[in-house]
Every structure is written in C-alpha cells, then in structure tokens.
C-alpha cells in the first residue's frame, strides 16, 4: 500500500503562487521591478525626512542669527556646525564687548574651538568647544534637561554620539574630565563635540602646548562670536554696522544662519525632487515592464486559463486568481524593497548625511511605519494595475475560444 504525504489544499491563492513559482526567473524580474520602486521611495523619503528634521531642529534651536569668524573661516564654521569636523581658528575676544552695545543685538556669546587628538571615547578627532556659561544661548537649549547645575572646569558635556555616559571620565591632552551631562541628539556637528567651560578650554590649550608664541594672551582670543538679533531688526543691517565699524580692524567674516539654512533648504528641495522623480520613474518603469511581460504572455496564459475554464472555473475566479498572482508580486516587492531600504538606511544614513554635510535626525518609529505603509500601498497598486489589461483580455474570451486559441 502506498502512503502519500498530505499535500496542501488547492485554493485560488495556491494556484496563483504555484504559477509564479513555476517561472522563477520571470517572477524574480517582476519582483525586482517593484522593489526598485519601493526601496527608492521608502529610502529616499526617510532620508529626506531625516535631513529635513535635522535642518529644522538646527534652525529652531540654534538661537543665533549671526556668527562671526575670522576672515576666510566661514566655511570652516559651517562645516564644524553641520558635520562636527574639528577646526581651530581665532578672533580677538574683546570684539564681543564692543558689539553687544550695538542697537538691535540682544545677546552675544563667544566660543573657543579646539580640535582634539584622538581620545579613548572615539575613533576620530573631536571638536572641543569652550563656551561662556553666563552668556550662552547656543549650547544650553540642547541640554536644559541634562545639566541641572553649573558646569565646573573639570567637567564636560558630551554630544549624543560620544561614547561616554554621565559620570564617566574622559581624557583630552592628558586632562581628565568628568562627563556632567549628555546632550540630546541635534543632528548637527554638536553630536560629535565636547563642551567645557571657557576657562577649562583656555587652560587646556595652554598646558597642552597647543599654542606657540604669545601663549599668555590666549584669553584674549575666541574662535567665534554668536549673536542674537532683536525681532524688530534685520540681521543684515546689524552685519553692515559691524562690518563698517570693525571688519578691517578685526578681519571678520560673517555667517547669517537664516541664509545658511535657507540655502540648505533649497538644496534639500532639489534633493527631494530628485528622489521623488526617481521613484516616479521606477513606478512607471515597473508598470510598463510588468504590462509588457503580461501582454507578451497573453496567448500562453489563454491556453492555461482555457483549461481551467473547461474544468469549471468561472470568469470571476480566474480574474481573482490572476490578480492575486500580480498582487503577490507587488507584496513581495514592497516588503523586500522596504526591508532593503531600512537596512541600508540603518547602516549608512548617518554616513550619507555626513558626506552630504548636512544635519540628520533619525525618523521616529511611527514616522517610519507611516512612510512604510504609504510606500507599501503605492507598490501594491503596481502589478495589479499593470496586469489588468492582460487579465481582463485573457478571461474575456469564452472557454472554447480560450482553449482553442491557446492550442
């Protein structure tokens, strides 16, 4: 007596699946077409959102309207702010006292930038930033919840990506500092920076032999001056006043944050246009390719459908079966594409942002789910839409015609 293993029952879904499995090359190609769309749209959308959130966060919390740097260091400051690439430059500190008297300026605060040597916490050089606690309005908004007491000279606040926790000790130039607080993620260069008091920064520079020449007068220098302008005044007018009075004497350059952010937004808009255009191209391409593949197999399918019709399948059953087939292609393409894009984003999102030189904040889980669902639905449409002509055409003919035409 023969013993047969139980086989899976015949259903419309199983028939559709078996037909796809029967032609693995064709099925794989169709799935690739749909996953190109889902991966590009999901990946591109999330990356755009990450950049948008990073820039919006920076714009909202940066606080300063004008940044003053030594002449020629405008780009270095932008790079330090956006990417956290360490740099060091100096400007006479007394300028801060002079400009705070200008009408329309509501706050002035200085910072001193030090490019570190490699530290134990990190695989690359860090930006060490000394800031004036009494006047600061740039760093504090990012760490209000983390730092409750005044920062001491032997303490530092670390950016969100620094591998150190509150209470840890961290060493720079043989000076040990206790981590007093860790900042929120800013998506900017602040995430890979370490903040200390201005006194601690001056001492570090002096004792670590980071300077040559007039070391005793290091306290007379800062790297950048951050200015907040009253809402009733135009930052550009304030810049003009400072330029007229002090540009020659102090050899200054200016970064206007609104202009900088507006430029970044312009770039981001162009980037999102490219992403969505590419996704739209992939969407159309997938529809066209699937349409062509399905249309080219109409005769082959007519024979198969004719057999099923003769065996008693109704037209609606066959339409359902053929649509399920194309639906399966879309579902698999959507899922693989979204998973693939997620893996790439998890692995390389920050690297991409860094190479673009822009701040990034990772999209929240709920945002990712929302984007994923939208992409999933858009991908689901592809194969059923592209195959609808063929499906209706194959099943429209009566069983005898379908059977005979297929012969």
């Amino acid at each position, binding site marked *: 007596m023969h013993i*047969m293993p139980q086989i899976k029952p015949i259903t419309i879904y199983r028939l559709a699946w078996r037909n796809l499995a029967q032609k693995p090359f064709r099925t794989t190609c169709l799935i690739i077409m749909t996953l190109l769309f889902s991966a590009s749209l999901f990946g591109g959308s999330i990356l755009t959102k990450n950049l948008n959130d990073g820039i919006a966060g920076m714009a909202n919390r940066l606080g300063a309207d004008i940044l003053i740097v030594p002449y020629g260091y405008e780009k270095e400051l932008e790079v330090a702010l956006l990417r956290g690439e360490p740099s060091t430059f100096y400007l006479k500190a007394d300028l801060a006292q002079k400009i705070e008297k200008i009408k329309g300026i509501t706050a002035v605060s200085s910072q001193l930038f030090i490019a570190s040597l490699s530290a134990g916490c990190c695989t690359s050089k860090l930006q060490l930033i000394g800031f004036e606690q009494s006047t600061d309005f740039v760093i504090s908004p990012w760490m209000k919840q983390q730092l409750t007491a005044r920062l001491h000279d032997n303490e530092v606040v670390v950016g969100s990506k620094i591998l150190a926790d509150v209470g840890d000790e961290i060493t720079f130039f043989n000076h040990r500092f206790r981590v007093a607080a860790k900042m929120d993620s800013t998506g900017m260069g602040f995430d890979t920076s370490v903040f200390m008091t201005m006194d601690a920064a001056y001492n570090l520079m002096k004792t670590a032999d980071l300077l040559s020449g007039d070391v005793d007068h290091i306290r007379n220098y800062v790297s950048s001056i951050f200015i907040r302008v009253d809402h009733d005044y135009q930052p550009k007018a304030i810049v003009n006043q400072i330029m007229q009075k002090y540009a020659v004497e102090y050899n200054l350059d200016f970064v206007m944050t609104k202009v900088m952010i507006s430029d970044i937004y312009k770039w981001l808009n162009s980037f999102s246009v490219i992403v969505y255009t590419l996704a739209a191209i992939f969407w159309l391409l997938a529809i066209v390719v699937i349409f062509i593949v399905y249309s080219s197999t109409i005769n082959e399918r007519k024979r198969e459908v004719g057999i*099923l019709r003769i065996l008693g399948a109704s037209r609606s059953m066959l339409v359902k079966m053929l649509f399920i087939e194309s639906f399966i292609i879309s579902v698999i393409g959507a899922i693989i594409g979204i998973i693939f894009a997620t893996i790439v984003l998890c692995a390389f999102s920050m690297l991409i942002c860094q190479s673009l030189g822009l701040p990034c904040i990772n999209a929240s889980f709920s945002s990712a789910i929302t984007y994923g669902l939208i992409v999933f639905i858009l991908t689901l449409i592809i194969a059923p839409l592209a195959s609808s002509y063929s499906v209706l055409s194959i099943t429209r003919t009566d069983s005898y015609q379908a059977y005979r035409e297929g012969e």
Partner: protein
Amino acid sequence: MNILEVNNVSKNYGSLYALADINMTVGDGKWLSIMGPSGSGKSTLMNIIGCMDKPTSGSVILDGQDITQLSLTDLTVIRRDKIGLIFQQFHLVPYLTALENVMLAQYYHSMVDEKEALNALERVGLHARAKHLPRQLSGGEQQRVCIARALINYPKLILADEPTGNLDEANESLVMNLLHQLHQEGSSIIVVTHSPEVAKHAETTVVLEHGKIAQIIDNLK
C-alpha cells in the same frame, strides 16, 4: 432514457457550414463514437456537446436539459457538473502535480478530497506517480491522469476527443481498456476519433462527412 439528444443541430461560420442538421441520441450508459476525416465537423460537434460552444440552430438536450438555451456561465456549470472531458493534448495544468490536477477538477466542482483523488489515480494505475508534474510523465501517463481528472466528479457523460491520438500502441490499449472499464460500470461515453480501430470499441459509430451524418454503424452487429 437518453443522456444526450441532438436535434437538427447546425453550426455555421458566416456562409460556411461546419455542421448541417445533425440528429442523434446517446442512451444512458451507452458508448458512441463520432468518426470522420479532418474538417468533417466532429470536433465542432464535440465542442457543442461539451458545452464549450453553441450551435447556430437546433437543440442539444443533455441529461434532460436543453443546453443551447443556457448562458456561457450556466454552460460552465453544466460542463463542470455533468461532463468529464478527455483531450488528445491532455491539457494538464503544467505547474500542478498529477494529484493536484485531479484535485483541481474537484476544487471547481465541489470539495477537494485528496483520498478520493488518489483513488482515482490508483484506478488508472498512477498512484505512485501522484506527486509528479506533467512534464515528468510519459504521454500515456498524462492521458491516464486526464482520465482520472475526468472521472473524479462522477460525470453523467465522458467526452473524449481523440483520446489515443498522441499515444503509442501499448498506451492506446491501456487507455481503451480504461474506457471499457468505465463503460462496464455504467458510464455514458462519446469518443471523437478519426481512427476506425478506436471507433470500433463503441456500440455505435456516427460517421460525419462535410458536416453531415454520412453513416451510422452498429458495431455490435
């Protein structure tokens, strides 16, 4: 009692007649052969009897019901419920195993019963090949799967179109023996063939020529 009555059936394509005024009956449990050369109209007649086509005029009464008055959807139901079809080209679904091909006919008819489908394959001597795809079976084996599929829903009428047309002598004998078994068990059978040898197995042979009945032969005499 007749399982089939064909009354004054004609089929024309424009001015071209494929069938002209055909009259014949098949008694319940009888075996009829329709024989004729290519273009004689035998396949057209089979397609009309098999509910795959409609005549231009005349009526076809199958199991007491005039099928010429039915819609295509209703014809599908009649074909599914009352007719077991066997084809020269086998027409098995290529991506389903022999067993699944038999079960597919069950699926469209009523309920899938794997054990019953296996019994049908056992009856045609293919139990051991149940898990094979059509391409893994010989022509004779494929035709036997086709017969098992035709039997599975206990049809009132078995309609075979050139059932041995693609088979060698040994397989032809095997298939004809199976049809004999079915006939002895009471099945009504119509075989369309161009071969006098195959036609001789039936009780009656209807010979078609140019769309008309040229001769009716009683093979029992």
